């Protein structure tokens, strides 16, 4: 089979197309054939950028009216497919919306899904055969985003049909948790804390160090699960993927789940009291020691430099 018709699940924030979308469009373009974007919401503000990065058209559901994206967008896409435009491959970002839409679609189309399985320490090469559409999710920063200099994508309406018994989940209020400093997945320096901190209060050391280095604070899944910090701070397989210039892991042993999200960092410093911790296998500088002793001294030394 050939891949000649690719759809990319596109997302926008405040009218700006996300970097993850641009990465997937760039990759889709390189595979040849026609590239279409699909988006939940209105596409008039983003058709230009989507076209510039290689989409010749964009299917837009229009305003979702607060409906959660999974069932709504998947149903709209099935209607397009039944209308005659059958993609060979649909590419999704591995994030909240991407996973939900892909999951709903997989049942509607009775197709399996390819996700970044096994935490990224194993590469599973997969061959598609037979008839599409195939559904695959990609971790952020898997590809570089490059403009193709194309014109605006043609906007095609893909309205959401009646969802019947699967509808009804509706957003009634949106809360944005304000964070100061750079965003976790864009920061040049990321300082992350893990279970080795011992207790929730000690995360303040990680926050302080991140601030002093003008970076962002992150966390391992263990302490997110323990409720010390919000899920939005999780670095790893199902959290954020970060590739900063410097990554400092404090009290993190280096479970595969975590390593997937940070081993692409340019430089890695690890502090952990267990000399056997896997994190030392990827660290450029490893300190076998107690974070409760090393971090305060490090903070003092850095603050002393003004």
């Amino acid at each position, binding site marked *: 089979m050939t891949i000649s018709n690719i759809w990319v699940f596109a997302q926008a924030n405040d009218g700006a197309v996300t970097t993850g979308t641009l990465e997937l469009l760039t990759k889709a373009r390189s595979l040849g054939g026609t590239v279409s974007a699909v988006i939940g919401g209105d596409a008039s503000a983003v058709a230009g950028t989507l076209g510039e990065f290689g989409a010749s058209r964009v299917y837009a559901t229009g305003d979702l009216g607060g409906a*959660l994206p999974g*069932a709504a967008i*998947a149903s709209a896409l099935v209607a397009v497919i039944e209308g005659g435009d059958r993609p060979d491959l649909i590419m999704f970002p591995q994030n*909240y919306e991407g*996973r*939900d839409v892909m*999951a*709903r679609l*997989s*049942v*509607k189309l009775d*197709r*399996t*899904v*390819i*996700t970044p*399985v096994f935490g990224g*320490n*194993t*590469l*599973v090469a*997969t*061959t*598609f055969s037979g008839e599409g559409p195939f559904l695959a999710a990609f971790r952020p920063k898997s590809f570089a985003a490059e403009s193709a200099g194309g014109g605006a994508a043609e906007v095609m309406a893909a309205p959401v049909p009646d969802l019947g*018994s699967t*509808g*009804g989940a*509706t*957003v009634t*209020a*949106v*809360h944005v948790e304000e964070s100061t400093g750079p965003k976790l997945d864009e920061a040049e320096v990321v300082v992350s804390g893990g279970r080795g901190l011992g207790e929730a209060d000690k995360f303040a050391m990680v926050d302080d160090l991140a601030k002093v*280095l003008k970076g962002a604070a992150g966390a391992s899944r263990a302490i997110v*699960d*323990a409720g010390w910090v*919000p*899920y*939005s701070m999780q670095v790893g*397989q199902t959290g954020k993927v970060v590739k900063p*210039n*410097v990554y*400092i892991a404090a009290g993190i042993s280096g479970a595969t789940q975590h390593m997937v999200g940070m081993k692409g960092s340019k*430089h*890695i410093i690890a*502090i952990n009291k267990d*000399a056997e911790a896997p994190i030392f*296998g*990827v*660290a*450029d*500088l*490893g*300190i*076998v*020691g107690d974070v409760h*002793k*090393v971090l305060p*001294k490090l903070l003092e*030394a*850095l603050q002393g430099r003004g």
Partner: protein
Amino acid sequence: MKVIVCVKQIPDPALPGELDSATNTLKRDGKLILDESDSYGVEMALQLVDAAGGGEVALVSMAPNGEVSGLRTALAMGAAQGVLVSDPGLAGSDALTTAKVLAAAVQRLGGADLVLAGTESSDGYTGTVPEQMAEVLGLPSVTFAKSVAVEGGSLKVNRQTEAGYDEVTCPLPAVVSVTAGVVEPRYPSFKGIMAAKSKPVDTVTAADLGVTATGWDAAGQQITSVTQAPTREAGEVIEDDGEAHVKIVEFLEGLKVI
């Protein structure tokens, strides 16, 4: 109120995997435990049933070799009964097949007002099964719930987002996936552990549920190779002698970060 919780039984993450020297495959005869991230769903279900003034928490699980030790843990916490799907034909099932099997197990229990699941397992991390189950069951769903309450016959959920959280309402019945850390899972009491031994677990095969395992091949995909991802070289590792922070400062200076 009836709540069904999907639980996964996994090899104890604290124990290293062991290879069978005869076959060079991973030994699978070890005891399985309740996936920690599913204990949050069990706890939330117990609390919701309490808040509703009565009802039942039931479990569905899929595991090889009729394994029930993880299920017993959830029963000891307070769940009333479970359906275990154990079938050699389901070994290596993809997420879609898993969702079909678990949805059929939910139906075998007569359905529920609410189906709870973790957001992802601690050994596979596929993370699509709850939403797929919802579609198979023809129900609405809310994924990545931080908190769940029932008010006036509908769900009020705080749902984790990239930027913060959304308040979501959803009619019942529904499927909800919960993030870990939102409730404190109770430890089973001695009485609970003893009671769990006699609670019913209905062990069934895929055929009993009327589900055909499609697997990878039928889905049009073949795994062509499995290799280790490229690894990073380890750098310098030093013991903290009380002055390790100086080393870090020098390292950061070398990179002109400070």
